[in-house]
């Protein structure tokens, strides 16, 4: 498969009153053409910051300390402001979490789509309008001509998110970054929007980076999953590998904390403790303090990535040949067994 984007050793920090916050501490991943890569993790794990680097819309106090983002033969971290502005929206587009606030309330939705077209494609107003109406139809909104002239407050949340998607797709981007696009929507609408994204991906051949903390959504849309914790990726693999054969204790914790329908007897599992303060990143494995499986070495030295299969890697000392044989918690094992039986789709 063709690699479309490559992130190497990315380090990002933010200057705050209390000092430097090391938000991203060495992130590596690749994105292949036509795939959906899900990045999962708790709030503050660096998911959103990573995507903001790709878009070149990092907050003013943030800086890229090290690393590169290779796209189309360019290093996105080294581009000037003009150069990255030209790529943004045209080749890499983004949709955001809350459709209620991500559209400008004083502009018609049609104009907001048109704007992107005029900006990047040198279309005349008339052509752009026709294209915009086409896009509104493409994202599954009826009466596109009427909607074109409406303002965001006249549309429902689901429709607004469809408009945001239409804006993102306006210039046939190659990469779509979806930053928790369904979190603010209710469940039925959520499913529709996910369906729409998948459908469009097949139609256009987009590569998608899907940021979320909702593992249900991940199972639904992703081809590959990267699990992030405290500014690092701790495990990555195909969606089957992550859900059915997870190796990192943090991934275990995440999977175990998903509430289950049938299981009403047990208490809801939660990972103990809180993520570390990235003003002073911990030594060794950042997750060690919260992990019941932590080894002595976890507090001293950072684990490298251990290869499990060609597509599956995890950064945990548990995979070292000298490590004691520790298995995932029994409760999770039980769940995975159930999941395997009922695995709905082989992607």
């Amino acid at each position, binding site marked *: 498969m063709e690699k479309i984007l490559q992130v190497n050793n990315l380090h990002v920090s933010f200057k705050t009153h209390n000092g430097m916050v090391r938000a991203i501490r060495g992130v590596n991943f690749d994105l292949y053409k036509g795939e959906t890569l899900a990045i999962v993790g708790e709030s503050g794990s660096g998911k959103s910051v990573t995507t903001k680097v790709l*878009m070149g*819309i990092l907050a003013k106090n943030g800086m890229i300390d090290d690393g590169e983002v290779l796209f189309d033969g360019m290093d996105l971290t080294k581009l000037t402001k*003009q150069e990255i*502005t*030209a*790529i*943004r*929206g*045209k080749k890499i*587009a*983004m949709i*955001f*979490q*809350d459709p209620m*606030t*991500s*559209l*400008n*309330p*004083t*502009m*018609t939705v049609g104009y907001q789509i048109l*704007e*992107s077209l005029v*900006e*990047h494609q040198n279309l005349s107003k008339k052509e752009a309008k026709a294209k915009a109406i086409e896009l509104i139809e493409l994202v599954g909104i009826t009466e596109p001509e009427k909607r074109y002239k*409406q*303002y965001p*407050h*006249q*549309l429902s949340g689901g429709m607004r998110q469809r408009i*945001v998607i239409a*804006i*993102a797709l306006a210039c046939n981007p190659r990469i779509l970054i979806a930053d928790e696009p369904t979190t603010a929507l209710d469940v039925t609408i959520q499913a529709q929007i996910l369906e729409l994204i998948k459908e469009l991906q097949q139609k256009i051949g987009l590569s998608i980076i899907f940021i979320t903390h909702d593992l249900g959504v991940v199972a639904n849309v992703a081809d590959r999953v990267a699990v992030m914790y405290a500014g690092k990726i701790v495990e990555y693999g195909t969606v089957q590998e992550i859900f059915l054969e997870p190796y990192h204790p943090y991934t275990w914790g995440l999977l175990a904390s998903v509430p289950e329908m049938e299981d009403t007897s047990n208490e809801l599992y939660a990972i103990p403790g809180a993520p570390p303060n990235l003003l002073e990143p911990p030594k060794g494995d950042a997750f060690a303090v919260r992990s019941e499986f932590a080894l002595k070495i976890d507090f001293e030295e950072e684990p490298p990535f251990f290869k499990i299969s060609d597509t599956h890697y995890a950064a945990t000392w548990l995979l070292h040949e000298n490590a004691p044989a520790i298995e995932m918690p029994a409760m999770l094992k039980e769940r995975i067994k159930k999941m395997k039986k009922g695995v709905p789709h082989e992607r």
Partner: protein
Amino acid sequence: MISLATLFVILTLLFILLELMPGSPFNDEKLSEEQKELLYKKYDLDKPLQVRYVTYLKNVIIEGDFGQSYTIQKNVDVSKLLKDRLPISVRLGIQSLIVGSIIGILLGVIAAVYKNSKWDTFTTIFAVIGVSVPSYVFALGLSYFLGYKLKLFPFTYDIYSPVQSSILPTFALSMFVIATVARFMRTELVEVLSSDYILLAEAKGLNTKKVIFKHSIRNALIPVITVLGPLTVGLMTGSLVIERIFGIPGIGDLLVTAISVNDFNIIIGIAFFYSLFYILMALIIDTLYGVIDPRIRVAKEGRNG
């Protein structure tokens, strides 16, 4: 309709309040009791309150007649007095409002876009000074330095060059407007610039200029328009002093004189015009809201989204 009712109430209140005020227009010691009596009779001031009130209202509503001046310019119609002076004051007020808003918005935008820079600091200092220093201090300063020392502008109002002579008073009056608008604009714009839809506009690949001019300023203006109402009131009261300082023959100056000599008809007439002006401003501001914010437009049309 509500506006008309408001005007009616204001007129009634003014009439009654002035009636309750001690003193009369003819407090001249040289006048004998008989002379006063005659004067009262001449202006119907000897009749009971209710009768005079009804007559007054009738005159105002049917003929637009606000009565006559008792002392300032004897027997001249108040409406005629106002006709000459009103345009001067209204022009001064509107000029100050426009100049103040434009400069204020510009300063606010600069401060917000270059947040925490020296421009921002400058605007903040300017805003604090503008709000806290009374307009007559600016007026005196401007007329002393630019009018008297440098002779760039007429020192006091010159009826033959109304444009030049209105420049200094306009700036003195608009100082408060500039400061208030700049402060509001900065706060609002900073908030708008950190909102999600600005992030989306950036993600669309629009450059900073387009993001600010097309997506931000209009949205930041909505709350700023709200303060224009109170600011107009500030301009009216400010103009009382400013017109005195520059010797401008406007209604503010006339009102001050009228109050000191108890020329009731003029007081009521001018106060009425101030109210009218304020109500008109409120109406304009409400309309502006609709123009700028589509959410309000729809609510007014009675549709729901």
